[in-house]
């Protein structure tokens, strides 16, 4: 059952990621990215990270991507027009990236052979424990990230303001 769920949602994630790369219009890419995030949220649930799955949907798919969709709608972005740039980067780059991926996969399969398996329910990340960790062991990063968000909000407001 775990395998079936994993395969379905990994397939959705990969398909959406491919669609992100292949779309001409940014809005289709944005929707594909939302699909990736949703599929990843289910995979987090399979790995027992229930709080992180919910936060992924609320924050990432429900707020950050809304920001992206807003910008695309506001700027009225059209489809990408194919330009006559150099294709050399593409012809060189894609094989190199594929090589890189193969290296990564080889490394991972070597470190984590298939007998190290995960099954649903053996490790759960309850919200209460994560909250406790955030407020005791990781208090400093927590406060620093809140200052970071404040700075980001101020920066975004100042940058996007129209000069009177």
């Amino acid at each position, binding site marked *: 059952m*775990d*395998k*079936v769920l994993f395969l379905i949602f990994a397939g959705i*994630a*990969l398909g959406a*990621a491919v669609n*992100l*790369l292949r779309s001409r219009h*940014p809005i289709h*890419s*944005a929707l594909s*990215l939302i699909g*990736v*995030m949703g599929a*990843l949220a289910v*995979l987090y649930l399979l*790995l*027992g*990270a229930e*709080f*992180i799955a919910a*936060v992924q949907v609320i*924050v*990432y798919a429900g*707020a*950050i991507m809304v920001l*992206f969709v807003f*910008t695309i709608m*506001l*700027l009225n*972005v059209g489809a*990408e027009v194919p*330009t006559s*740039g150099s294709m050399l980067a*593409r012809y060189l*780059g894609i094989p190199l*990236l594929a090589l890189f991926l193969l290296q*990564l996969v080889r490394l991972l*399969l070597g*470190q*984590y*052979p298939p*007998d*190290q*398996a*995960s*099954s649903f329910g053996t*490790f759960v*990340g309850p919200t209460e424990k994560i909250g406790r*960790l*955030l407020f005791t062991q*990781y208090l400093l990063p927590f406060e620093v*990230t809140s200052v970071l*968000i404040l700075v*980001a909000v101020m*920066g*975004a*407001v100042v*940058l*996007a303001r129209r000069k009177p």
Partner: protein
Amino acid sequence: MTVPISWYLILSAVLFVMGVAGFLFKRNIITIFMSIELMLNAVNLSFVAFSYVLRQLSGQVFVFFVMVVAAAEAAVGLAIIIVVFRNRDSLNVDDIELMKW
């Protein structure tokens, strides 16, 4: 039925490489930004998988911080994109080349 943990890590690697590909080969700046978010998501999946393997919650806490930083970065980045669009009236990265030698 159980899922080998390496599958999660391989999926994360594939998504990461796809993010890199989008970052290098796409020309619309918003799509490039979205590829960055894809890379961050792939890394998040790795963190959660390792948190499972090592049976520690620190991995999940770190995912939380990654998401927060991604949110801040997306906000400021999109504000910059809006300003650039207002000035150059184009979202193609090839057109933003005033400072190129």
